[in-house]
């Protein structure tokens, strides 16, 4: 089966900093894939390269068969993205903002209005649909952020630290939404996080990044078994400590 996301030797060099170093892994269609790493590990840089927002220094990547450099607009057309750090226009309401984002996909009219209604219901934003975004809490902002990522019915969803601003209920809801999207609509989800319990809840397969390098990628249960670690936390710590030992750093 052709992978939904196929990354080969992806590298990003900023002057003397190698943010992403020769990363290779793939994500199957319709799976929720966890992308794990500490802050600054290179998760955001990788996702931004996958969306054509940053140009790779070396390597290649394809999203549903489309090259992320040569065909980045096509990639973005079929993708949804929630950045790790962003703000929403304070003077817009959820409705006007979602219509605005839809228009950037060339979408307008009744289908968009229906889609907005569906998303507002999905994220329980109906009551604040016409309130200015400027007054929203971070949890509410994140819900609007998630809604905008789904406005185009994406086939691939990139979520960068999506659960960071959410309360426990919001996080549980998010995980439920991701599972539903993958199961019912066949959406491929790649979500980055450093909250390891989220990974265990949502993903069967993961990639673990450390200082720009891929430490491991594959089936979570197999990785745990291979390293003799019963939990995700233990697996992560084992891999990271091993990497630090190889680098000569004492944990």
């Amino acid at each position, binding site marked *: 089966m052709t992978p939904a996301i196929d990354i080969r030797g992806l590298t990003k060099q900023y002057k003397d900093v190698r943010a992403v170093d020769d990363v290779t892994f793939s994500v199957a269609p319709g799976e929720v894939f966890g992308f794990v790493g500490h802050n600054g590990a290179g998760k955001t840089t990788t996702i931004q390269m996958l969306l054509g927002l940053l140009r790779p220094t070396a390597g290649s990547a394809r999203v549903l068969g489309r090259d992320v450099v040569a065909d980045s607009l096509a990639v973005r057309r079929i993708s949804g993205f929630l*950045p790790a750090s962003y703000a929403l*226009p*304070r003077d*817009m309401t959820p409705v006007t903002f979602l*219509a605005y984002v839809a228009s950037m*996909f*060339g*979408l307008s009219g009744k289908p968009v209005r229906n889609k907005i209604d569906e998303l507002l219901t999905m994220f329980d934003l109906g009551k604040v649909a016409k309130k200015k975004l400027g007054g929203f809490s971070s949890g509410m902002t994140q819900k609007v952020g998630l809604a905008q990522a789904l406005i185009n019915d994406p086939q691939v969803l990139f979520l960068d630290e999506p659960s960071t601003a959410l309360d426990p209920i919001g996080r549980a809801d998010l995980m439920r939404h991701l599972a539903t999207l993958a199961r019912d609509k066949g959406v491929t989800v790649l979500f980055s996080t450093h909250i390891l319990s989220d990974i265990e809840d949502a993903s069967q397969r993961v990639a673990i990044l450390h200082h720009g390098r891929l430490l491991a990628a594959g089936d979570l249960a197999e990785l745990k078994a291979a390293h003799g670690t019963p939990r995700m936390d233990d697996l992560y710590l084992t891999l990271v400590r091993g990497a630090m030992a190889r680098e000569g750093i004492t944990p």
Partner: protein
Amino acid sequence: MTAFLRQEVRTLLRTRRTKIIAVVICYALLVFPIAMKRPPQSMVDLAGEWFDGDGSFTLFMFAYLDLSMNKVSMFAGIILVGGIVADERARGELPLLWSKPITRSRYFLVRLTGAVGVFAGIYITATLIGTVYYPSQVSGFDPAIYLGMATVHLFAAGYAVTLAGTMGVLLGRKIPAMLVSLLLLGTFVGVAFLPFYTDSPWLGWLNPFYHGVSLIGQMTTFTPADMLAPIAALLAFHIATAALGAWKVSREEQ
């Protein structure tokens, strides 16, 4: 991308600043005849000396363009689009907006076009109100001349929007961009009539606002064909400036 342009126009029309600009332009237009009711003879004579035609209508058009529309459009441009891209970057909105299937240059051009369109809409509405209102207020008012001159001036006034929008991406930060736009536009507006005072048209060749008011030199004789040269010059200013902005924004990573 018409959906995005339509949405951009709609978004801009909803903002308070657009509504205030529309009100200010219409207010300036309506009270203007009061300011021009009894001009001193010395001003009438000077207008006749500098420009084409004699009498108070020439002075009216000079004051209309210089005192009113040039100044209003200078501020309107900056207030409408003084920080495209730079503003979104400062607010942290760019990571989200640029992940959509639209190139950065197109994003910039659509937003700029939307703003120019909104401003043009306000300007044209105001001009049409003037066409109906001024004949009863201004002695010797000629609607055809007024419409012709306003049509050409629209392209200069719109240039304030293009320049202010482009400066945001050229300088990258909103506050310096707005300040530089204001000083540049202020200079353009300040010396727009200098070629007439000095009888040296070349002094205005690089000044879009001179082209915008240039018909005042042939007020009583210009034909529709005479409008084409200044409009073509102004379109060239628009295209060159916007292209520079699009090129700059396309080179940015994030």
